[in-house]
Structures are given as structure tokens and as C-alpha cells.
């Protein structure tokens, strides 16, 4: 690709650039539709039918139905958009973020209370911090 991407060496992180944005366009626009209460109600009443109104890929729809935010992000989702999906489920931003880390809700909450995830070892891919692929149950992304 022709875009310069100096951020690919940050572990456990997907930067939402133009390529991601293009891939995730309809997934993210679907998420935004959940800012209307009537759309949230329709989505909750029949998720598949609501998703089928959007020209998303089948993989994106499965990722949404699985509520797997890492999977959603790999298919182009952006967390600020995906937050509308979590909000529809009544989740907080902390529950959403925690769900991507392979930790339980309580483990994640306690990590934050204790000062958050440490930066050491998590700056560059290939170091040995807890966000690195080899230290993550679900892999690096």
C-alpha cells in the first residue's frame, strides 16, 4: 500500500487509518445507526434482520453477533463507532475495552484501579510486555 504507516510496530493496537476506514465503512455506519433508540430496539428484536439491511460482509456480521470487538476491529471497526454497539447492550466503555484484553471484567477493573497496564515491554512489537501476542490468550490483535 501507498500509505506510510509508522505505527505498525506498536503491539496489540490497530490504528484506524484510511485502509481500515475503507474496510470498515459499513460496519461503522451500522454502529452509528444505533444512536437512535428505535434502531436499537429494532436491532435487539432481530439482530440478523437488522444487520442484513446493511451492505456489510458476512464476516463483519458474525463478528458483531459474536460481540467480539477484536474481531470487529480486524474487519475495519473503530472503537468509537463500536461503542454504540456496546452501549446498546448496556455495557460501559470499561467493559468494552476489557473484553478485548483476554482478562475477566474484574481482572481488568482491578488492573485499572492498580494504575493500569504498564508501558514497559508494550512499546514495540517483540518486547515482552503483557499486551504482546505471545502473552495474550487470544493472540496479538
Amino acid at each position, binding site marked *: 500500500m501507498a500509505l506510510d504507516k*509508522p*505505527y505498525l510496530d*506498536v*503491539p*496489540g*493496537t*490497530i*490504528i*484506524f*487509518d*484510511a485502509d481500515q*476506514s475503507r474496510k470498515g*465503512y459499513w460496519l*461503522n*455506519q451500522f*454502529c*452509528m445507526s*444505533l*444512536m*437512535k*433508540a428505535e434502531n*436499537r430496539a429494532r436491532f435487539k428484536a432481530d439482530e440478523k434482520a437488522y444487520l442484513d439491511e446493511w451492505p456489510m460482509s458476512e464476516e463483519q456480521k458474525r463478528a458483531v453477533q459474536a460481540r467480539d470487538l*477484536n474481531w470487529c*476491529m480486524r474487519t475495519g471497526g*473503530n*472503537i*468509537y463507532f463500536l*461503542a*454504540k*454497539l*456496546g*452501549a446498546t447492550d*448496556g455495557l*460501559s*466503555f*470499561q467493559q*468494552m*475495552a*476489557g473484553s*478485548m*484484553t*483476554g482478562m475477566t471484567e474484574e481482572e*481488568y477493573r482491578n*488492573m*485499572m*484501579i492498580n*494504575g*493500569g*497496564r504498564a*508501558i514497559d515491554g*508494550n*512499546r*514495540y512489537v517483540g518486547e515482552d510486555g503483557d*499486551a*504482546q*501476542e505471545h502473552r495474550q490468550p*487470544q*493472540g*496479538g*490483535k
Partner: protein
Amino acid sequence: MARITASVYTSHVPAIGAALDLGKSGDDYWKPLFAGYDYSRQWMKDNRPDVIFLVYNDHATAFSLDMIPTFAIGTGAEFAIADEGWGQRPVPKVVGHPELASHIAQSVIQDDFDLTIVNRMEVDHGLTVPLSLMCGQPDAWPCPVIPFAVNVVQYPAPSGRRCFQLGQAIRRAVESFDRDINVQIWGTGGMSHQLQGPRAGLINREWDNAFLDQLIADPAAAAAIPHIDYVREAGSEGIELVMWLIARGAMADVNGGAAPTLKHRFYHVPASNTAVGHLILENS
């Protein structure tokens, strides 16, 4: 002639708004956070501005992927509170200041900043949480607010240097407005946080505090921090801190005036996923 009297810097975590709205601000979890703003609420009462120029980022609320403005200035008469998926926050609507906003827009566009002028948009927690932190829970916000939204959703956000220069242009614009009013400029977002992926929950206390030190004492150096450093050191959403440089660039010392007075400084971990930083700087 209008003048910028002070700048305020604060994180704008949505959970802070929820804690206030749900009456949880006295809980053990939240108490130390809100205590850090006790001084600020009193300071706001003692130093009520005529207008707040509020720099924030829209979180996929007013702007979808259809249109992504790098810089957007709200010139409308009022701005509704968005429903971000949890329902509308129970806070007052935001009253704008069309005359000053239009004057600033005209001035900084002629100063080579390529703004998008927005007359209608809903504002999200990025704008309302700072107002709640600084003003509590009033029936109406204490003064008109000019929303100024910066793209930090889709890469690339504007550079820190560009933001710092924009702040300088905003100061010139305010000072050429022919009414005798006091304007505060607020920079919001940050500090270190990452909301996505296996690295979610990242907090970099040392980096954050070094940023606060530098922002106060050597803002031009803070403005030189490249995009990748924010992402690597302060998390993917830590990039929101570039918005603080717009507020800092508008202070008098950047144009040869006296150094600002540090009225208040506060740092706390955590609020939800985020490190909270807060400064009040007054022009002398």
C-alpha cells in the same frame, strides 16, 4: 477588545459523566476524582467567562465516516446533546456564540487554517463532560460555548505543531473581536488511555506528568512531539492530547507575553480506562 483570560485542560472520560448523572460521584471509586475538581468549580464561579471556546473531539457522534473534518468550528446558535447509545445525558443544551465563532472562523481561515464551518451538530461527552467537571450540575451552563472539534478518529490527526499554531491564530482572532469580553479556551481529551485491543488499559503515569510539566513550561517543545510518540507512550487514544496544544497556543506567553500562572494541577488514575489530567492556567 476581547481577550483570552485563561486556559483549562481536562480529560473528558464518558464514565465521569455517567457517574455524575447517576449520582455516584460520592462513591469511593469516584470521590478522589471529583475532589480534584473542587478547586476548579469554585474558580469557575469566581472567574466566570463570557464565552468558553471548547476544543474537543467528536467520538463518531456528529461526524460519521461520510465526512471527517480535521478542524470544525460550531457557529450555530445552539447545539443539542447527543444520544451516544446510552440515551441523552441529562445536561443543559449548549448555547453557542455565533458572532464570535464566525469572527474567529473568518479570521483563522484568512490566516491559512482550513476550517469546516458547522451550523448544526449534536455534541457528545467530549464537550459535555468537561463542562460538568468544571460547572457541576447547573440548570444552564454559565455562558455560551463555541464547540471546536478536532479529528482524532481517523489517522492522521493534525500534528501537535499545527494545533499549537492554530491556538496562536485563535488568540489573534479573539483579540481582534471588537467587544469587551472575557474568553476562556479549554483543551480536552487524554491523558494516557487505550480503548482497544490487547493493549487496552495502558496508563503511562511518568509520560503524562512529563507532558504536563512541558505543556506548562515549554509548550513549543510539547508541540514538537510526533504523532507516533503519543500512540506508543500514551496509548492509541492518548493522541487526544494534541487538542491541549490548541488551548496552550492561545496563551499570552507564546506571543511574547508573561508566563501564565498555574492555578491548579491534578492527576488521577483511573477513571474507567483513562488517566485523568487537569490544569488551569491564567494569563496575568
